[in-house]
């Protein structure tokens, strides 16, 4: 009797102690990750670069001092004879081979470039995540039939992954014909197996955790376990990958444009197309290539920095 009372009072005391130690309400993992992200230099630099890029992409057309398509200074550029106009007070980045203002073209071109990056990333993300989620759910909780389905799906993604991405993109572009949409689809499709593999692997890892067993032993439905337990815990690598693949998408789209599979109307500026056209005149006007090339690299770097910082912030092992 007395033993029982002392034990209960011990437990009460324990409750008191813990209550005193922490009065704040709980901080979810997402919120904590965000807090850590704010403290990371890498994340801040990446975010600033991305923000600048996005702002330019949105308001670029209004910032541009001249029309990006008007060949206003046509007479001053003689591309055939290797005569170009470099940076000057009137045209900060000089003129291109048709006498158009490079600075204006860069500002306006940001939008197309962002569009290509975001749309192709989204194609890869949405379709890839869909495939990965089905495969992952089937493999973890679908029993024997589910495992077979997962096997088949993964073999297909293996094959897709085995092909060099640029080759795959070129073949798709060859089938679909030359257009900006083609570039976006080609670059996006290449990303599908990457996202699918990633999400599935992550779900499989989570599916083996004890908390999933615990949920099953509580009698929670499998569909609910997948949606409320496994999925939320499997998403962070996918989010990181999405950021990183914006960078690769922009570069790959540029590569496809460079190969001449991009927008058939070169009047509409896009960094990748601009780079590909400038290549022809690299010997006489190297700066014409440098502007879009450097812009693409810096933007890709911004997304990569943020992605890497997010990877660190979301890694539960590094949780302080």
């Amino acid at each position, binding site marked *: 009797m007395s033993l029982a009372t002392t*034990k209960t009072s011990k437990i009460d005391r*324990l409750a008191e102690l813990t*209550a005193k130690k922490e009065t704040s309400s*709980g901080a979810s993992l997402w919120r904590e990750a965000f807090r850590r992200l704010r403290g990371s230099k890498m994340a801040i630099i990446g975010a600033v670069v991305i923000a600048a890029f996005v702002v330019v992409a949105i308001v670029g057309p209004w910032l541009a001092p001249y029309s990006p398509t008007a060949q206003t200074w046509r007479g001053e550029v003689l591309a055939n004879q290797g005569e170009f106009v470099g940076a000057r007070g009137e045209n900060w980045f000089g003129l291109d081979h048709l006498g158009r203002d490079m600075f204006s073209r860069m500002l306006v071109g940001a939008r197309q470039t962002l569009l290509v990056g975001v749309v192709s990333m989204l194609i890869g993300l949405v379709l890839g995540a869909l495939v990965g989620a089905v495969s992952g759910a089937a493999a973890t909780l679908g029993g024997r039939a589910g495992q077979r389905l997962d096997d088949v799906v993964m*073999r297909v993604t293996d094959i897709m992954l085995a092909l060099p991405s640029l080759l795959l993109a070129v073949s798709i572009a060859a089938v679909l014909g030359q257009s900006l949409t083609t570039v976006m689809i080609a670059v996006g499709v290449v990303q599908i197996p990457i996202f699918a593999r990633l999400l599935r692997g992550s779900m499989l890892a989570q599916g083996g955790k*004890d908390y999933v067993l615990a949920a099953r*032993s*509580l*009698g*929670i439905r499998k569909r609910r376990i997948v949606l409320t337990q496994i999925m939320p815990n499997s998403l962070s690598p996918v989010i990181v990958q999405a950021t990183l693949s914006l960078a690769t998408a922009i570069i790959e789209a540029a590569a496809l444009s460079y190969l001449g599979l991009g927008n058939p109307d070169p009047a509409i500026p896009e960094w990748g197309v601009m780079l590909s056209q400038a290549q022809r005149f690299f010997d006489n006007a190297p700066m014409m290539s440098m502007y879009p090339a450097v812009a693409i690299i810096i933007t890709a770097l911004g997304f990569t920095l943020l992605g890497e910082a997010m990877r660190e912030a979301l890694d539960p092992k590094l949780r302080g």
Partner: protein
Amino acid sequence: MSLLELDGVKVHFPVKKGILFDRTVGHVYAVDGISLSVEAGQTYGLVGESGCGKTTLGRAVLRLVDVTDGRVVLDGTDVAQLPEKEMRSFRRRLQMVFQDPLGSLNPRQNIESILSEGMAAHGIGGNREERREKIKEILAKVGLPGNALSRYPHEFSGGQRQRIGIARALVLEPDLIICDEPVSALDVSIQAQVVNLLEELQKSMGLTYLVIAHDLAVVRHISDVIGVMYLGSLVEEAPSDALYEEPRHPYTRALMSAVPVPDPEVEDRRERILLLGDLPSPANPPAGCRFHTRCPWKQDTRCATERPELRDLGGGHRVACHFAAEIASGEITRTSGEVVPAAHEGSGGSGGSEASGAPRASGASGGGAAKGSSSGERASEAPAGT
């Protein structure tokens, strides 16, 4: 009738190999024919070395793994036979406390969500408010503050997390709780608290436990009956005190010899039986008596060919050894194995790990030296060295 009855339960995991198409190339006999019963209101302790199939047996009872053969009967219902849908609602009566407290809690769910989910699935406590009241009540019972509700698992200490795990099992008011090494991941100082809590909850709520551990000390403290597992089967089962006073199976004797005795005089005379050889793989268990490859009392007849059944030697003391009676009476003496005075081992610096127990200690009989000849060497060197 017992609350839980296991009858010849087997869980065999297929081993698959293949490049494109997986073929089954063998089986891991994780649990290979276990029969036991757990009485309502009591605690059944299950001990055994790592890898002997304890966790798998626990999961088989909850049907978290498929039972290959045998029956798992809870209160008259064969769990292994229930259709999926009925099983889901039946789960309410069977709950589990996991070994790794952090891993068993979803890091993205707060405590209220973790604890209310099961209630919602079984329609306990009509609305959110009622559930919250009930959760607060349970939290108080396990010694957690009410403001824990909105916090997340990573904000708690190991001991607190395990209390959350216990609370999650309790909210469903189950008949049977399976505790899979409930304290082995916790600091030694916290272990006693959690074990006490489990005991206290049992008294106040009339719970039935199946406690799995590799630590004899933990199990002895709270168990009414103890079963000793070796390679997927039970080798001995007896009421707790009887098992400690007179272990009858050679394997149990070896385990017990590793447990320090409180009485200093007895402790001075305590001898450790060192087992030779490695623990065989459950994918390829020895024929006959599973223990015959390491048994210090192994006989030339029967041991290697005939698998011993659990036999009742009186007083509920069941032993799976052909020669248990002869060994007890001294008719048969050890044919192999080494014995070291335990005191010397203690001074050898392994005292710390020994204090905490048990089957681990038997593995530690060669603390890394369980390998045939080397443990033999050590066995003969140890006394000379000190």
